[in-house]
């Protein structure tokens, strides 16, 4: 607490000093966010009474900018944390503060900071409030741009874990070079190439962990390193992006304390010109769970980020079975095709039609077990054929404007989901999904949006697993915007076969400039909420929700 207060004083003092540095008084900006929830017992959906009646998360951010100086702090309060949030968030206090100095060549940040090297395969510190994730590093970061086209980053710190920090120390170095900016002979070249190299290391004290034979203790590596190399090349409409990461021996709780080296490869190639584009991605991940504390599982203290190759969707039922990245082993490919059906054609109509086709398939690696704790654990083939199917998504999405006042969207898809990715044994779920929405502009300030979705699944409800997503579903949404700033919405979802209940919600909202207030009431399904392939288990709830956010 004492250290925190000293740092806070330092931030305040530097803010004041910096006001005298610049020619003007600088700028203060900030935001306030409040999320509140009540919930009561509802046996049909499995929700429970909340002992404190009200749950509330609140965040207040302040930032001060003056010329090259910036400083910021965030106060957070969880009285008590919303359902689904880690209980260790309970409490209130100063959760984030930083001071930074930046000019064209140099950027120095002290305090908390977020960072990403490449695509995040060896390091990504970020915040996602919806999921209750914040693995900000607390320490020092230096960025240096010695010449145009070269950026060097060095950092050291410990990771935030709710109101505490992970025991491990994270050190990282990254260098990125834009070859066309560095070499004048390439400055006019149509081919542009960026390359990057990263190194991240974690130090953690020794601890007593036994091998499979309890008589022997594991000889744990105190320093675990990870490296990555990346390349991004564009030539006209064509581009190619590749990144490889390798991780040293890192016995940890998520891989069963094995000593196998980790690796990840991401490849992406695309062709994109106005009105037409195509992309193809491939990803192989093997034993890449990398945290600042070896004995922690769950959502906290991830040093790296393995992006999910599954396609994000905007319709609800396409996300009923979201895919969570299997950081310790998966192999996936994805293809996308985007094009516009021209105006004036039979399918394009008067305004044209946007079409998006997607195919994704993800499986386990082809592995062979060779031992337990203290060994290399398993061997894996680069591709192999003995793989377990995890996920498939085949979908087509259309967006069409019929007239200046009528727009519509349509999406059809087939999704195969293996419950083992959520840790449950069972059969593959095969889901067919149709979704459509129509938006009608009724006047300058009134808009009506109607949405209907249907999901048919061969999944069967099992009382042991208690997955309340099982069965066939229908959903209707009616949303009406009026008086420029207000909206009301009714969202009705019901399971009409192998019934696991209905989930009806109503909401009203007010949106104006940078502020938004929304009040809702109804049932929320138990399930997995995912953002960017990172997922969180969400318990069922039935009650009131209030959300307010504003910035200044």
């Amino acid at each position, binding site marked *: *607490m004492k250290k925190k*207060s000293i740092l*806070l*004083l330092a931030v*305040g003092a530097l*803010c*004041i000093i910096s*006001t005298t540095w610049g020619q*003007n008084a*600088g*700028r*203060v*900006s*900030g935001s306030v966010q409040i999320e509140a929830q009540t919930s009561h017992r509802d046996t049909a959906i499995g929700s429970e009474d909340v002992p404190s009646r009200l749950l509330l998360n609140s965040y207040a951010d302040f*930032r*001060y900018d003056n010329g090259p100086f*910036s400083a910021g702090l965030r106060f957070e309060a969880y009285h008590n944390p919303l359902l689904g949030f880690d209980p260790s968030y309970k409490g209130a206090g100063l959760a984030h503060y930083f001071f930074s100095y*930046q000019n064209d060549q140099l*950027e120095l940040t002290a305090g908390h900071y*977020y960072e*990403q090297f490449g695509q*995040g395969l060896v390091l*990504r510190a*970020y915040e996602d409030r919806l999921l209750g994730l914040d693995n900000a590093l607390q320490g020092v970061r230096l960025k240096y741009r010695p010449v145009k086209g070269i950026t060097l980053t060095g950092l050291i710190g410990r990771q935030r874990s709710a109101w505490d920090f992970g025991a491990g120390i994270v050190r990282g170095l990254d260098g990125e070079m*834009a070859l066309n*900016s560095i070499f004048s002979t390439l400055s006019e070249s149509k081919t*542009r190439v960026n390359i990057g190299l990263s190194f991240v290391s974690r130090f953690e004290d020794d601890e007593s962990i036994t091998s499979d034979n309890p008589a022997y203790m594991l000889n744990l590596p105190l320093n675990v390193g990870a490296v990555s190399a990346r390349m991004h090349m*564009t030539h006209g409409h064509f*581009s190619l*992006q590749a990144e490889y990461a390798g991780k040293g021996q890192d016995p940890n709780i998520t891989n069963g304390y094995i000593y196998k080296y980790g690796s990840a490869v991401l490849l992406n190639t*695309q062709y*994109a010109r*106005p*009105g037409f*584009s*195509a*992309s193809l991605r491939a990803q192989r991940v093997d034993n890449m769970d990398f945290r600042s504390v070896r004995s922690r599982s769950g959502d906290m203290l991830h040093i790296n980020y393995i992006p999910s*190759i599954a396609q*994000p969707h*905007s319709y609800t039922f396409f996300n009923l079975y979201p895919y969570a990245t299997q950081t310790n082993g998966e192999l996936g490919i994805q293809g996308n095709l*985007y094009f*516009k059906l021209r105006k004036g054609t039979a399918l394009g109509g008067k305004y*044209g039609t*946007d079409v*998006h086709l997607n195919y994704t398939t993800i499986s386990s690696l082809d592995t062979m077990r060779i031992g337990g704790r203290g060994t290399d654990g398993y061997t894996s083939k680069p591709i192999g054929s003995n793989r377990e199917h995890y996920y498939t998504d085949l979908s087509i999405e259309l*967006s069409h*404007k019929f007239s200046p006042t009528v*727009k519509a969207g349509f999406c059809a898809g087939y999704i195969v989901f293996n419950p083992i990715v959520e840790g449950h044994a069972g059969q593959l779920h095969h889901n067919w999904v149709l979704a459509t929405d129509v*938006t009608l502009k009724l006047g*300058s300030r009134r*808009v009506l949006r109607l949405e209907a979705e249907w999901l048919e699944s061969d999944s069967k409800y099992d009382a042991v697993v208690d997955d309340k997503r099982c069965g066939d579903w229908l959903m209707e949404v009616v949303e009406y915007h009026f008086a420029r700033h207000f*909206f009301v919405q009714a969202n009705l979802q019901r399971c009409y076969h192998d019934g696991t209940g209905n989930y009806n919600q109503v909401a009203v909202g007010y*949106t*104006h*400039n*940078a502020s938004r207030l929304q009040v809702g009431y109804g049932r929320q399904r138990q399930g997995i909420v995912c953002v*960017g*392939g990172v997922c969180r288990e969400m318990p069922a709830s039935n009650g009131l929700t209030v959300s307010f956010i504003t*910035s*200044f």
Partner: protein
Amino acid sequence: MKKLLPITLLLVLAWSPPVFAQQTWPSHITLRTATQVELSSDSLVNRGHPTIISFWATWCKPCNKELDALSELYDEWREETGVRIYAIAVDDSRSQADVVPHANGRGWPFDVLLDSNQELMRALHIFAVPYTLLLDGQGTIVYQHNSYKDGDEDELLEQIKKLAASPNPQ
């Protein structure tokens, strides 16, 4: 010691009363173009003319609707007011590879930039997309709105026209 937080804030505010004056666009924050060229947030200010900044993501349906609407109006608005539009994608590395194919596939005529670890978004205290800002020719944020419904672009045009008609020329 818990009192330090409000005291610090009060000191800062007391020291510099004009700080809550009109919001200015953050400088020195690094963005990337579709071809991975780095550029500083300062360079987005359209010297002498208004700039529309729209934060969006490939998976965000209202964002796509808003950018489709702006796309249809862009040529007309640009001719009339000299406005420039930047669509800043906040997709993380999961869907970032889709940003360029997505924007091209929909035929958007404006510049698409990447804010891959949401640094600019955080500096502006934006937590959800879509989020749209209007900057004047000096980089002052004169209008902003979160979320999107059909017709919001009419209000944006009103604001641009107001800006063009203001006594201080852009």
